[in-house]
């Protein structure tokens, strides 16, 4: 039977409950919510005067009411040490979501740690150190002393290459300006750590180098552009599941205003179905290309649009570089950048060629070109808003594909204008404020391969779980376990010895090829199983936290509850590490180096915010952000007038492009011709294994799966990551719905649960990415696109049955996920 809470009533929010601004921290959309809290021994009443809504709650409330909350929006948590009721419900006044919650955000309350209701007991509450063969709880002072004493043994002034760092760079979740600054100041300010990587990829780099090199920031529009446009183009993205309320609250109204939709995706997603429902099938063009051929499609579209003269010549003349090549092709630039004509020559591709490579009909490519750029009957230009995401970011030939898509936006004058934009749809929110990372270099070091190769001595990890989200994960885990076990063995052999002896033993193991691993996280992660020191962090709502969403909307989430036990904000953990490093270095007589670790006397996350973000954005303070509420302000903030922060609705409205740092303000086109599957090893897998293992996220289990593995509602639906397989392929493989299969190839193996999917093309499966119990990364080979961008999407493998449906899958629904009106 489906999971049921058997909750048939909830405490009523009293009229005098405290109300906090909350931006959902689970995805980039950043929907507005309010957190209400009130003492655990109080309750509101059904009388209008006795509840926070001022309505009679003894009556049934209508659809879309504000005066209702689901059991998932309720919990009992600690606030200033006391138990309080907590309700976190969507805010109708927030322009991002207009009161909509999603299946993820509307479970924020239920996904808080509670010692009363028992939710999220997996959250870390104490620092822990590997002792006596397991992890033992300890104090911050003890844990940080060990971290500092081991770390100072491997770093020196101007030589920090043996310290490897994995650190998130995002907002939302436990990221945000406070925390990226804290970690950034430590590793890029006090130190110049070069061997570092980001939470979802094996290097410290942009995911979208080319658009930035062309002068175009990847978040350049406003969400309202979807409601003002003629055509919505969605490339390698599934916004109904991955940016839910952007789709529901902005794209759907756009379709209802008459926008047509072009979807570029080898797979039919629920987004495609919903677009057909909203816009009518005639107004939706699903270009189900052969996987990885996006570049051929975009170059063909660009060529055709230019040949038809459907370009914005005035815009090209005024806002883009004239001449030829401005940035030549080299190791740091996988395609030449320059003028429109240069790109036109390089990217030239006929309809016939484009159709043959992509597997589309010429007619469909022409139709797409018309929907993007053909002037309307009255001669006015068509507007097109383009959203793209991991299908091309983590797809084939990242640099050139994104460049080719931005080419179309520039050529048609669709950037910096209402109803335009060529933007990432995004994963987490953003919240990046750090000292320069220029010392990291370009291309950045491929850190995970360096670790496999035996490099690095101490590894500091900030909310990264390589075990679930890296490529070549099978080999990475094997090596990482081996190297960290060497240190565990040394620690076990010195149980009961003094700190000095212990540190010597650890350093001995490190010098013999071991790796000392320090893990800062909110839960005991999978890579955290290899850690020697574990430091507990808090997340959004357990601290004040600022982030910006996919239209650069900056908000302050107000702290509404205590973190678990002794857990702390990452920025304050970074500060404490810096202070401990300074202390130990001074003890060791390394004063000049110790001086580099001064400047961390922050008491609160607000101090970190003022030290970092505010230093570059002096108008922005907590008080002013609080006053801007859940609508916040769109970055960049340009002033403060009449008690309000003044922001920027969309970028580049003046036609000057700056993201590349060129003084002339001219955008560049990208001249990248089609060249097949670019990353090493991909063509080999394609030619030698039977099934494409396309992969991505799913609605319920999106990037907060690390929390949801302890959420009953979610685990009941997807106890094991699923793999969508065409029923005819299932018959050939001899598997039934719910069976467990092994997915295996030349680099590794993983497992998944079969979900029959008639809309899946033959031999093209789709597996959920980032699962705690079935990591798709196990079978992704080590080959990356240029500039060390993983290509997770292009993985081929064979499939065999492991077992019949396990008990947890026995009564799952395996029906189509597509809405039907009947």
């Amino acid at each position, binding site marked *: *039977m*489906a*999971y*049921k*809470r*058997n*909750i*048939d*009533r*909830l405490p*009523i929010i009293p009229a005098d409950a405290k109300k906090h601004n909350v931006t959902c921290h689970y995805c980039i959309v950043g929907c507005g919510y309010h957190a209400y809290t009130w003492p655990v021994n109080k309750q509101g009443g059904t009388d209008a005067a006795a509840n926070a809504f001022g309505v009679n*709650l*003894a*009556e*049934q*409330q*209508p*659809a*879309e*009411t504000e005066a*209702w*909350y*689901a*059991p*998932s*929006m309720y919990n009992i948590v600690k606030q200033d040490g006391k138990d309080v009721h907590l309700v976190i419900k969507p805010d109708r006044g927030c322009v991002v979501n207009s009161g*909509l*919650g*999603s*299946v993820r955000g*509307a*479970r924020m309350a*239920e996904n808080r740690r509670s010692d009363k209701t028992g939710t999220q007991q997996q959250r870390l509450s104490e620092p822990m150190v590997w002792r006596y063969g397991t992890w033992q709880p300890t104090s911050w002072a003890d844990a940080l002393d060990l971290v500092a004493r081991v770390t100072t043994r491997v770093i020196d002034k101007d030589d920090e290459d043996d310290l490897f760092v994995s650190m998130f760079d995002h907002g939302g979740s436990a990221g945000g300006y406070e925390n990226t600054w804290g970690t950034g100041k430590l590793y890029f300010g006090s130190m110049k750590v070069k061997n570092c990587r980001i939470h979802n990829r094996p290097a410290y780099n942009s995911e979208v180098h080319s658009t930035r090199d062309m002068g175009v920031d990847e978040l350049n529009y406003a969400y309202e552009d979807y409601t003002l446009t003629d055509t919505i183009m969605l490339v390698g993205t599934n916004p*109904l599941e991955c940016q*839910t309320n952007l789709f*529901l609250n902005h794209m759907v109204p756009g379709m209802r205003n008459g926008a047509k939709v072009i979807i570029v995706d080898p797979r039919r997603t*629920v987004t495609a*179905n*919903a677009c*057909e*429902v*909203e816009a*009518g*099938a005639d107004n939706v063009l699903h270009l189900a290309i052969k996987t990885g051929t996006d570049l051929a499609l975009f170059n063909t579209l660009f060529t055709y649009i230019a040949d038809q003269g459907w370009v914005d010549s005035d815009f090209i003349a005024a806002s883009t570089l004239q001449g030829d090549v401005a940035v030549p092709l080299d190791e740091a630039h996988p395609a030449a950048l320059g003028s429109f004509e240069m790109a036109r020559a390089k990217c030239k591709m006929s309809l016939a060629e484009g159709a043959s490579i992509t597997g589309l009909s010429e007619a469909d490519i022409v139709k797409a070109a018309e929907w993007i750029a053909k002037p309307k009957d009255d001669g006015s230009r068509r507007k097109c808003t383009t959203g793209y995401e991991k299908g091309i970011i983590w797809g084939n030939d990242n640099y050139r594909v994104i460049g080719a898509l931005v080419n179309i936006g520039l050529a048609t004058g669709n950037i910096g204008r209402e109803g335009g934009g060529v933007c990432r749809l995004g994963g987490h929110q953003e919240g990046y404020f750090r000292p320069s990372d220029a010392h990291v270099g370009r291309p950045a070091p491929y850190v995970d391969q360096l670790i496999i190769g035996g490099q690095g001595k101490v590894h500091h990890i900030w909310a990264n779980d390589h075990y679930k989200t890296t490529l070549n994960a099978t080999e990475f885990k094997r090596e990482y376990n081996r190297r960290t076990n060497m240190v565990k063995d040394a620690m076990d052999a010195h149980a009961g010895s003094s700190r000095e002896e212990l540190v010597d033993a650890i350093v001995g193991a490190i010098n013999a090829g071991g790796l000392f691993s320090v893990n800062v996280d909110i839960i005991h992660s999978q890579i955290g199983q290899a850690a020697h020191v574990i430091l507990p962090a808090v997340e959004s709502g357990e601290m004040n936290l600022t982030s910006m969403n996919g239209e650069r909307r900056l908000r302050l989430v107000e702290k509404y509850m205590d973190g678990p036990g002794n857990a702390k904000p990452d920025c304050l953990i970074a500060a404490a590490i810096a202070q401990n490093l300074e202390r130990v270095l001074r003890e060791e007589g390394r004063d000049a180096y110790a001086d580099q670790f001064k400047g961390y006397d922050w008491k609160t996350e607000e101090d970190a915010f003022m030290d970092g973000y505010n230093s570059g954005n002096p108008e922005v303070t907590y008080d002013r952000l609080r006053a801007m509420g859940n609508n916040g302000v769109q970055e960049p903030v340009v002033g403060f007038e009449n008690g309000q922060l003044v922001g920027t609705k969309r970028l580049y409205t003046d036609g000057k492009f700056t993201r590349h740092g060129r003084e002339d303000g001219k955008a560049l086109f990208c001249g990248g011709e089609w060249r097949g599957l670019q990353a090493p090893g991909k063509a080999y897998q394609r030619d030698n294994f039977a099934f494409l293992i396309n992969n991505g996220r799913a*609605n319920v289990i999106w990037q907060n799966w690390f929390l949801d593995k302890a959420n009953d*509602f979610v685990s*009941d*639906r997807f106890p094991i990551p699923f793999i969508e397989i065409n029923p005819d392929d299932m018959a050939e493989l001899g598997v039934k719905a719910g069976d467990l299969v092994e997915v295996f190839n030349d680099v590794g193996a993983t497992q998944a649960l079969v979900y029959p999917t008639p809309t899946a093309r033959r031999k093209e499966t789709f597996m959920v990415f980032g699962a705690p119990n079935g990591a798709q990364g196990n079978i992704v080979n080590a080959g990356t696109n240029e500039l060390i961008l993983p290509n997770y999407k292009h993985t081929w493998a064979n499939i065999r049955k492991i077992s019949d449906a396990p008990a947890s899958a026995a*009564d*799952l*629904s395996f*029906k*189509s*996920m*597509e*809405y*039907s*009106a*009947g």
Partner: protein
Amino acid sequence: MDRCDKLVDVGRRQFLRGGAIAAAATATAVALPAAPAKAAALARVDYPLNRLGNVADLKPNEPLDVAYPDENAPGVLLKLGTRVEGGAGPDGDIVGFSTICPHKGFPLNYVAADRTLNCPGHYSRFDCEAGGQQIWGQATQNLPQYALRVDEKGDIYAEGVDELLYGRLSNVL
């Protein structure tokens, strides 16, 4: 695949205020509230024991509109034709569900072809053969299902609901 905008509008206009639900409720015969005065003292709300229909009223795979625990809470009874866990009646195939989407309160429509309830508001779908499990959607709970009992005369009684109903902070108002 005709987008049912009208249904949404109907939902918005009539949701639990207009005549549609009341009319459905009149088909459900007697409603016998059980010991209402005691409800406040119990940990769980005390549900009425309502007769929603008779086995003879049900045709396989045709929804019968009902309301429970009161006339402002629309639902359906279904005879699925195959035994399911939690199914009532001689064939173990009778189930009852709320038909208000637990996401945003829009009225669900029944799709007989795959025995699902579907929401035109935000495309959520619930499987009537799997205890109302949300197949896909934005609700944070599975579909509230009725605890049903069928007596020797074939009368079908509801005696409880297993999730909070949309739009009320107590299932029994």
